């Protein structure tokens, strides 16, 4: 049972009759896309992919990518195609994380609770100043902000036009990549609270 959510598709879509859509031409395009995405490693935009394929029809490239994505999902493959920040990337599936970690020999990249809280405040409220972050968390967040900047998860997006002209922060593409988000709209909506949620009790 995978705790990973289903693939994040750029458009809400059902894919009926996939086989009918897989013309031999498309199959070969898909193979090329597979090669490209593997070689790139980092997320690649549709336009860049189309250019590499020397094709002009972006929507056709997109359709192939979607078909490829569905194909990977259906066939119990170890990889999945994810759309992050409107670009496409091949990733291993969460179900295989144990073996991959064993191979890589690295410790899994975890984020501290302070980092996660700060990140979520910035993600939902951007642009936001450091003192606004401090107010929500009730603690000084300067160190956390600095470390998030170093990890390229947030960036300085401007200055607030008030006395003191404090810096404003926003999230980066790196942030979207880290969490596999298509874009900021894909962030789950903040839950409204009238009462304190009692069912979150075992979190800590």
């Amino acid at each position, binding site marked *: 049972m995978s*705790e*990973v*959510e289903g693939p994040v598709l750029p458009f809400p879509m059902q894919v009926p009759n996939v086989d009918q859509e897989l013309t031999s031409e498309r199959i070969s395009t898909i193979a090329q896309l597979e090669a490209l995405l*593997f*070689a*790139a*490693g*980092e997320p*690649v935009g549709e336009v*860049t992919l189309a250019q590499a394929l020397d094709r002009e029809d972006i929507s056709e490239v997109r359709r192939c990518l979607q078909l490829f994505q569905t194909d990977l999902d259906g066939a119990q493959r170890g990889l*999945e195609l*994810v759309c992050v920040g409107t670009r496409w*990337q*091949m*990733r*291993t*599936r*969460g179900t295989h*994380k144990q073996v*991959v970690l064993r191979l*890589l020999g690295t410790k*899994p*990249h*975890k*984020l501290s*609770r*302070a980092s*996660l*809280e700060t*990140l*979520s*405040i910035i*993600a*939902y409220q951007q642009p936001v100043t450091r003192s606004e972050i401090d*107010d*929500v*968390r*009730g*603690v*000084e967040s300067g160190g956390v902000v600095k470390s998030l900047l170093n990890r390229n998860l947030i960036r300085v997006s401007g200055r607030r036009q008030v006395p003191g002209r404090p810096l404003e922060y926003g999230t980066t593409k790196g942030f979207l*990549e*880290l*969490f*596999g*988000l298509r874009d900021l709209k894909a*962030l*789950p909506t*903040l*839950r*409204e*609270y*009238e*009462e*304190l*949620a*009692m069912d*979150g*009790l075992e*979190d*800590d």
Partner: protein
Amino acid sequence: MFAAQATWTIHTEVFEGPLDLLLYLVRRDSIDLKNIQIAKIADSYLEYLDRMRELRLNVASEYLVMAATLVHMKSLRLLPRLPTLIEEEDEPDPAAALARRLLEYQRYKEAAMDLNARPMKGRDVFVREGASIGAADREVEAGINAFGLLELYYELFKRHQAGPPVHQIGRTGPDMEACCRGVLAYVGELGAPKALGTYLRQIVNIEERVVAFIAVLEMVRLRWMDIEQKEHLGQVLVMRRPENAVDLQLLTGRLESVEPREAADE
């Protein structure tokens, strides 16, 4: 680390800050945030801090700030409510403000948990570090060659040798005697009151302005001038006392020897 009643219940709670601790206490004691009982929550919070200190855990300053805030709020509740004479707008209820803060903090705490639950790159899912794509490696057609750059370099540094090094003229301090004379000339010999501000404002150099101001104060002290202000926030007027002669040497001498610390014998 928290000890409950008689039994030792060790929770390994690590709190991110006072709000986090308050959320925990509110849940633990089932405090209703709508009718928040400040006294109760303040007591629970302070009790927790005491235990932390008993266990020699360092209590960060933010926790103490919150403790002070809660105690303050508690003390406000103890004061009798006087009927207000003036119609005031609804005073912000600190308890409600605290409740709002806690709820807002919880929203982001939950959001953080939700984010953490997603498959994270580097923790659950992995990518290849691939070759970098794009124009970075393409050869750049330079419109210039090495000799052209060399020419530019020589030209730049030739220009710098054109003139002798610039001579820096230092600033001399304000001429004290001139400042004093200026003030005296303005005030005149007859004793008619003159506005001090008007005179000082037209002095451009700030150091001279300061010297003039101090000169006036000294002269008042030596009883060569009087200073007055007829109404609150009104003009400051100075006037000469003709019966006392001005000794300019004495004045400039005093100004030069004025030590800032002289004012300490108040």
